């Protein structure tokens, strides 16, 4: 499923930003720390970082329950939500990746 998001992100980036000199693809990953916190990290396929990219966590109904941004080292940690949730890497048009909580493992 995550692969699908990678592919979608790559395709959208290519279609929406045809004039961009950058061919990089956004990449985003999260894992469960096992201590009721979630760790997420992002970056691009050319190795560049994703500092300050907004991270939005939504509950199962789509309500925003947490907002933050990736640190200078392109990562973030937040409290694991109860129940269903998803984490959105909001890098702008063509650079958005959403990971459902069901795909975030220890």
């Amino acid at each position: 499923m995550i692969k699908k998001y990678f592919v979608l992100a790559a395709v959208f980036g290519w279609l929406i930003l045809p004039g961009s000199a950058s061919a990089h693809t956004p990449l985003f990953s999260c894992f469960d720390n096992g201590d009721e916190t979630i760790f997420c990290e992002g970056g691009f396929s050319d190795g560049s970082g994703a500092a300050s990219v907004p991270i939005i966590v939504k509950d199962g109904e789509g309500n925003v329950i947490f907002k933050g941004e990736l640190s200078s080292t392109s990562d973030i940690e937040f409290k694991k939500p109860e129940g269903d949730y998803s984490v959105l890497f909001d890098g702008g048009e063509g650079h958005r990746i959403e990971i459902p909580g069901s795909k975030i493992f220890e």
Partner: protein
Amino acid sequence: MKRGLLIFTGLIALSLFCITPAWAHFQMLYTPQSALERGGGMTLKLVFTHPFDAGHTMDMEPVQEFYVMHRRGEEGEPRKTDLKEYLKEINWTGRENSGKAFEAKLPSKIMRSMGDYIFIVVPGPYYEKADDEYIQQFTKMIVNVGGIPGNWHEPAGLPAEILPLDKPYANWTGGVFRGIVMSEGKPVPHADLEIEYLNYKPNMEKNAFEGEAEINASHPSFETMGIRANAQGEFAIGLPKAGWWGIAALGSGPVDQHNGKGLAQEAVLWIQVTDIP
């Protein structure tokens, strides 16, 4: 007549012996997949063998160094993690015998994050009786998690190493792989290289090679392929078949004596080739 037959038989036997290929020694640092979608636990096998033939498995000496260097992205210093605590001695079975080898079952905390992981093993020098000298291979194998590149192209600081110019974990069948042979941080002009295909499938549960050969070579030159780097130490090889390929730079290390005998220090790099789906 009987004497003539004996001489004839002897000559045939001698000629067969003489054309038996001298398969190259390769320190394996193996895991089934080097381009991972996500991180987690991983098992590695450290085996000293002849990967094309998978015949004789050499007894590994105690491991001197075993560690991983990780970096996510192009910035910052790689993080080094010692892995010796995870080594466990095993017996690896080849097609002719079993030999002392090692495995490492790494917990998920080692490689959960995205980026490149350069795994490095430095085994103790192995005495090769046939050559009356020791051999020691500084071996690298690079895994990527999630697609964000890191330090795959950077020197690990080994006395001898092969510096990749292409990602070792992202090669299509039919592509080309390039690298530079380095010794003490400098390119080795006209370095002598040997390349072998991992020709039998490793069984991670049984600690053994199994099945039939993937390639039946028509001539010994196709089993261990010898090439030379150019004057800048650079080389390029074609990648005709999916799987793992080992590249060894012979005699590229700075030390040539051990225990009063000759020592061949070599740099080894493993690369994985993938068929286009």
